[in-house]
């Protein structure tokens, strides 16, 4: 399951992310604004630079023009020609002339040898001078004398008017550079008051750009706008923080806290449900949460009620699911539970265990004969009788239609046998005639028993051992209580032998090692013989007989497969003409095969041999009784095709006389128990003779099996048998040998 996250952490995470995004956007805006501000500043700086140097260039040109005019001024030439009164002229004329600009600090005339003209005037006290006594080679340079003197010194040669190639002197001006700039220019970008030189002394023109310190004037609109942006960014950040806190508080108060309270409340409800405590109600701001808590409480109580009811119903259902509705004793599920519980308990508490099975003999026939109501009543009485018969506290379970079981622990074998015998005695002594059942109702008991300290494997096989014991009891006319003994293993080794299991399963699936042994059936009157084909598995060192084969086949429900392999083998015998010509054959078909929809198709290949061979299909009476409607159609069709149908082992189970009239068979074969019973008391002998007579009267041929002596042959003949089969006539042989008797 995906791990869930606490709402508190989700909320905190969401608020942190939202706050981060908003602050990022906010400060992104701030930094963008800063960039714009910087860009504006840079642009203004560039414009200021352009403005400054453009002004300087313009002023330089202007100064040059002024210098040129000065060099052409008559009075300059006058002074260079006659400088006797130069000082008077300079002080009283020059500074009042149009040539002397307000930003001039000093204007002086130099001789051709670059000596300052004023220095020639004797007895004159010269004031502080910006211009040098001798001009240097630079026609334009700066002389910076902090803090207040920033001079631009410019000079120009004065040429003779008579000989323009002759330099007769020089004019030099010391200019207050910043006043010059201020005088003739108006600066929009340059912060003019800030403009200054970053060094002092002589500065050549090539050093001007580096020596000048300048900056752009601050843009009041831009600065104000930037102040507004900064204020806005700070305010917005504070608003975001405040809003986040308010939203967080609001969500916490309105949603998160109630959610946690409700969660704790629900958690409390769960713990209270187990501890049966009274619930603690929390208080909420919102009415809806209060209502939700109330509804949860009500819902919780309703759930508890429903849970209690469900628990009761489950208990009831559990009980019903483990109770047989007819007998009200435990059913198969209850028995399995008890058995598995006992197996688990055995590991820690080893004890003796008796796995007991009770079965009503021929219950199906009784049910069919007297109806289901009688059959159900028989089962109910059987259950009640068993429950009464068993010691107190010992449960009886109905695990099948007429099959009951019980698990008896901590009892000796004798005690178990006493319990079984008493139960059996109570059952058979019950007056079932009250149910209008005319015949005696018998029961069989199979017991698997395990003593103390057995390996668990020996305990786990008890059900199978009880089955085997039940099988023995069923087939025993007198000893109806059978305890499983190891001797049973030998006779039922096919159940436990893997080798045998493999042999039989391989034969059923592939047909390998299947062979047929043929036992003769002699017609007493005509001395005609046909042979019952009996299946064997033939190996080099051994032969597997039907008792093993059919136990495994029945256990694995492979009757159809085996029948198909047998028919294939028989067909191949016929096709390969390994059987004598015109030989009659009888083959056994299981009840399951007879119920297959393709049963008629199975015998189709044999149709071509019906002209030369008598082919008899032997079926058991149980299939006929249990599925008379279904199989009648099939059997009659086969009969119409020319096959003969024989009802095998008549009398081995429950042979109802009422079927005889309408059975879709041609031959009835008495089980050997009936043949052997001809040697019993006269009453039995007569009853068998009467039955044989009725069968004969109904038009059926009658085969008596198990004729092993001359006396039995005579009794059979006397009883009305048309055919006899048994060791006295001939044993089964892999070749259809004629009977020795006849021979």
């Amino acid at each position, binding site marked *: 399951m995906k791990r869930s996250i606490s709402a508190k952490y989700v909320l905190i995470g969401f608020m942190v992310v939202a706050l981060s995004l908003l602050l990022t956007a906010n400060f992104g805006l701030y930094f963008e604004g800063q960039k714009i501000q910087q860009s504006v500043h840079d642009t203004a700086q560039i414009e200021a630079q352009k403005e400054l140097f453009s002004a300087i260039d313009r002023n330089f040109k202007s100064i040059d023009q002024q210098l040129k005019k000065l060099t052409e*001024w*008559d*009075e300059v*030439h*006058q*002074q260079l*020609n*006659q400088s*006797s*009164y130069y000082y*008077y*002229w300079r002080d*009283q*004329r020059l500074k*009042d*002339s149009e040539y002397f600009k307000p930003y001039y600090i000093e204007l002086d005339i130099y001789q051709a040898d670059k000596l300052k003209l004023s220095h020639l005037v004797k007895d004159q006290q010269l004031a502080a001078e910006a211009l040098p006594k001798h001009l240097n080679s630079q026609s334009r340079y700066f002389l910076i004398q902090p803090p207040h003197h920033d001079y631009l010194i410019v000079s120009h040669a004065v040429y003779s*008017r*008579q000989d323009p190639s002759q330099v007769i002197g020089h004019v030099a001006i010391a200019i207050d550079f910043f006043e010059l700039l201020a005088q003739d220019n108006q600066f929009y970008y340059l912060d003019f008051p800030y403009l200054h030189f970053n060094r002092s002394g002589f500065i050549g023109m090539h050093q001007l750009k580096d020596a000048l310190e300048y900056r752009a004037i601050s843009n009041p609109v831009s600065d104000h706008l930037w102040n507004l942006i900064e204020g806005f960014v700070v305010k917005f950040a504070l608003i975001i923080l405040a809003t986040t806190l308010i939203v967080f508080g609001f969500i916490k108060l309105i949603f998160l806290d109630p959610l946690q309270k409700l969660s704790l409340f629900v958690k409390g409800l769960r713990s209270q449900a187990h501890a049966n405590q009274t619930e603690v109600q929390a208080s909420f701001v919102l009415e809806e949460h209060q209502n939700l808590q109330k509804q949860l409480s009500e819902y919780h109580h309703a759930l508890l009620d429903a849970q209690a009811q469900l628990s009761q119903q489950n208990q009831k259902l559990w009980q019903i699911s483990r109770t047989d509705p007819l007998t009200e004793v435990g059913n198969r599920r209850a028995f399995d539970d008890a058995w598995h519980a006992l197996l688990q308990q055995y590991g820690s508490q080893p004890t003796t265990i008796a796995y007991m099975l009770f079965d009503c003999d021929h219950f199906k026939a009784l049910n069919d004969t007297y109806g289901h109501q009688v059959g159900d009543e028989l089962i109910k009485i059987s259950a009640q009788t068993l429950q009464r018969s068993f010691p107190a506290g010992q449960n009886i379970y109905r695990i099948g239609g007429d099959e009951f079981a019980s698990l008896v622990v901590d009892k000796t074998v004798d005690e178990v046998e006493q319990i079984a015998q008493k139960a059996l005695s109570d059952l058979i002594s019950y007056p079932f005639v009250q149910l209008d059942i005319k015949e005696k109702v018998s029961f069989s008991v199979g017991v698997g028993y395990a003593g103390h300290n057995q390996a668990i494997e020996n305990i786990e096989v008890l059900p199978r051992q009880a089955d085997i014991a039940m099988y023995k009891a069923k087939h025993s006319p007198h000893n109806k209580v059978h305890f499983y003994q190891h001797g049973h293993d030998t006779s039922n080794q096919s159940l436990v032998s893997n080798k045998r299991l493999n042999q039989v399963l391989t034969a059923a699936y592939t047909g390998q090692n299947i062979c047929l042994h043929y036992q003769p059936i002699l017609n007493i009157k005509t001395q005609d013989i046909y042979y019952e084909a009996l299946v064997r598995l033939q190996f080099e060192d051994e032969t597997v007989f039907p008792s093993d084969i059919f136990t495994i086949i029945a256990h694995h429900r492979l009757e159809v497969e085996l029948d198909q392999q047998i028919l294939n083998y028989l067909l191949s015998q016929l096709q390969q003409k390994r059987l004598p010509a015109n030989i009659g054959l009888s083959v056994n078909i299981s009840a399951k095969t007879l119920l297959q929809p393709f049963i008629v198709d199975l015998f189709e290949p044999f149709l071509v041999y019906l002209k030369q061979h008598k082919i008899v299909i032997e079926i058991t009476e149980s299939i006929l009784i249990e599925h008379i409607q279904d199989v009648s159609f099939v059997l009659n069709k086969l009969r119409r095709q020319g096959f003969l149908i024989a009802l095998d082992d008549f009398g081995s189970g429950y042979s109802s006389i009422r079927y005889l009239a309408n059975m879709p068979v041609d031959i009835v074969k008495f089980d050997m128990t009936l043949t052997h019973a001809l040697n019993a008391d006269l009453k039995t002998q007569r009853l068998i003779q009467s039955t044989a007579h009725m069968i004969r009267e109904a038009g059926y041929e009658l085969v008596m099996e198990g004729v092993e002596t001359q006396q039995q042959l005579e009794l059979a003949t006397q009883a009305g048998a048309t055919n006899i089969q048994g060791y006295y006539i001939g044993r089964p042989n892999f070749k259809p040998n004629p009977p020795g008797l006849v021979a």
Partner: protein
Amino acid sequence: MHKYLILALCNLLLFSVAAQAKQVTLQASEDHVPGQARYLDNGQAQPAILILHGFSATHHYPTVQALQDYFNLSGYTTLAPTLSLQIPLRSQPVQCNSLHTHTLQQDIAEVSAWIGWLEQQGHNQIILIGHSSGSQTLLEAMIPHAPQSVKALILTSLFYLSGDELGSLESEIQLAQDLLKQGQNAPRKFNFLFCQSDYLATPESYLSYLSITRARVIETINQLNIPSYSLMGSADTRYNQVGETWLNELNTSQTELRIIKGANHFFTGEHEGQLHDQVEAIINQIILK
């Protein structure tokens, strides 16, 4: 008006034949700085005309230049010198507070040198035209004898330079004279004509021009050995100082006085043409003689 139109047309017609202006320089002597003049040579068929500018001006002064151009177009050789005022090749007017070291004698010498220069150019008939103080300088230059080549002297806006009515202060004159006697010729500011309190000049220079008084002018006129003609504007503001009796005095002198009604000191505007007509009429009159 028709007269002026015809004159203008004539000027146009003659323009193509008029002489090209030439800048000539001349140093009167080694003590003088070179001066320059505008010379328009139209040969010697007609008398050469020398036109001298007024106080502080140059030959570029409009009144002077217009006269020169007019008579150049009329076929006269004209020379308009600029007195150097001790400024080599002076080309610009001097201001009141310019340093004035020049003297009237230097001016006269330069005028004489220019007359000699014209004579050297082959002109033996020269008519002198002066304007304002240029008239006084020419007048002084013709004393005591006018050169033989000079045939007549035409004086326009003729006044004088010294007199109480002109603002001359006796105390200043006395001071200048004293300084000069003491050998102190350092320049200082004087009151001189329209340069009240700011005429920067050496005492020598200052005093040299103060010699031209009202009486001196009449006197020199009367001493001339060549005919002189005076052309005065009736609306000259100098009469505010000298009084219109000055015209009477002129009229009673040996000069032939002609008054152009309404003209100012510079004969500007419509009176420029009248000045030219009058001067031309005088020259024609001189030639006919």
